[in-house]
């Protein structure tokens, strides 16, 4: 079951998110640059996923009954590793090996390298289609497990995403949850200026999905959206569009412009870590 069963001594979801941010910053520091702004932005969603919504066994990442979490946006690997470390699926000392030769934690997420990584997602736009197949497969096996697909807003530009979206509704895949990280950022600039996907909620709705849009850095709102997605009694797939802030939690990084691939000076990593440490529950 999920590592967070609501036990009294369990860390709060906010504390989980804080630790995910800390883990991500420690990995970012190893490389000195990377997709750290995405990791800080999606940390709250990952905290809710791994410590509220998902069923899994940390000591058995291949447990047949697990909910499948697909990282379609493979470059967010640093974020998922941070969550998998907090969840106990990857040992914490391994974060020192992030992106290093022969590490199990490559810069772009790959299923063959890392426990808990369900797909190789670096070629963007493939996750949702794979999710459709897994959701169909789970139904065929009469499994109650769900598929969660995390995708970036840039992936909304890929035609394959919308083929999969149409298919999921066609097959009434109520065991499929798609999470869209709407950080309004892509490689060349703001997503809405690259290939505007708005109005996004209406689009998914028109494609036959139960669509919700929430502030992805408001943990309570995210948790409630996940709960609605899981409990809805309608035979349709569910999407949660999460508006997130790049680099959320580290104001001086949030203030940077062009933050798809952040270069951070050595002393700034420590400064960022101190900001995150200062939020630790007493």
């Amino acid at each position: 079951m999920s590592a967070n069963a609501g036990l009294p001594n369990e860390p709060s979801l906010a504390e989980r998110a804080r630790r995910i941010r800390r883990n991500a910053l420690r990995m970012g520091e190893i490389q000195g640059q990377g997709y750290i702004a995405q990791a800080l932005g999606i940390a709250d969603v990952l905290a809710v996923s791994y410590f509220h919504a998902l069923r899994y066994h940390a000591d058995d990442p291949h447990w047949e009954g697990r909910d499948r979490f697909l990282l379609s946006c493979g470059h967010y690997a640093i974020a998922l590793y941070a969550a998998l470390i907090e969840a106990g699926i990857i040992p914490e000392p391994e974060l020192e090996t992030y992106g290093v030769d022969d590490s199990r934690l490559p810069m772009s997420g790959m299923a063959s390298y890392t426990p808990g990584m369900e797909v190789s997602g670096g070629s963007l736009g493939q996750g949702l289609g794979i999710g459709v197949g897994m959701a169909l497969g789970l139904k065929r096996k009469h499994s109650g497990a769900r598929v969660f697909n995390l995708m970036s807003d840039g992936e909304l530009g890929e035609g394959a995403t919308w083929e999969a979206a149409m298919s999921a509704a066609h097959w009434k895949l109520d065991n499929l949850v798609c999470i869209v990280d709407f950080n309004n950022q892509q490689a060349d600039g703001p997503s809405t200026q690259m290939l505007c996907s708005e109005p996004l909620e209406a689009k998914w709705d028109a494609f036959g999905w139960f669509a919700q849009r929430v502030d992805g850095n408001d943990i309570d709102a995210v948790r409630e959206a996940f709960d609605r997605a899981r409990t809805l009694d309608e035979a349709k797939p569910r999407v949660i569009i999460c508006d997130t802030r790049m680099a959320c939690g580290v104001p001086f990084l949030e203030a940077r412009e062009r933050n798809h691939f952040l270069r951070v000076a050595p002393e700034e990593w420590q400064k960022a870590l101190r900001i995150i440490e200062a939020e630790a529950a007493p």
Partner: protein
Amino acid sequence: MSGAKPRLTTAAMIASIASEGQKTKAAPFGHALVALAETRPEIVGMTADLAKYTDLHIFAQACPDRFYQMGMAEQLLMAAAAGMAKEGFTPFATTYAVFAARRAYDFICLAIAEENLDVKVVCALPGLTTGYGPSHQATEDLAIFRGMPNLTIVDPCDALEIEQAVPAIAAHRGPVYMRLLRGAVPLVLDEYGYRFELGRAAMLRDGADVLLISSGLMTMRALEAADALRKDRIEAAVLHVPTIKPLDEATIVAAAAKSGRPVVVAENHSVVGGLGEAVAGALARSGIAARFRQVGLPDAFLDAGALPTLHDRYGISVSAMTTTLREWL
């Protein structure tokens, strides 16, 4: 908490192909396209969310009204480039080599090549030029594109050649796929009095003991390896073949027929379906039975890691290549 850690030298982000101290030029493709666009009003630039990473941002800044940001939608990029070409424009469409070759193949093939439309597909990260792993390593792009009728394929070696190839591929009417080195691109061929000619191979240095045939960045490596071999009294010829298709078979066959020297093809590509097999086919068809070897990437999904590590591991660094050649010769 981590204190001041030593900087790891094996980080995956070491992705430059320039060696220490090598002369480089910034964004040669972007600057060449801007220069060309001044006299060619029909040229437009198009990309799929990778202007900054294909040096097309230089063009976008210089000619904002001729630049089309299509979003991260490579199939659309190629279909729309075809549409632009049908209306009389000459699009330079950029993305990474993997996404053009794999995702957008059908669109390049039918929408562009079948009608012989004037679209130039220019792609960064050819072969093994990133440590990101198989999702970004276009180890088989030449194999994929060689099979496409009507398509001209160019694999330039350095900044000088990119600058010269841009007007040359624009002057050619029809679809072109060009492999791109981006960012700080090494400058090598200026020392050889070289001029790029579409469809022509060029002998950069002669040598009686072995004939190295190469394209792209492997030509600069072949030149360095030839220098290293000279210290062992092995004289290596280097034949640079920047146009992969149509292949300059006459020059290749003539060079291979000379003096019975062994032939080694070096390419930043899988040993399957690239320049090596193209050359082998040309030699076999001409009845030349030279000793033949390939320096290229294995037929496998390659590791993630730092680029210098991977080039050593897979045998296409100067030192790995030189070692292999010494063993063979």
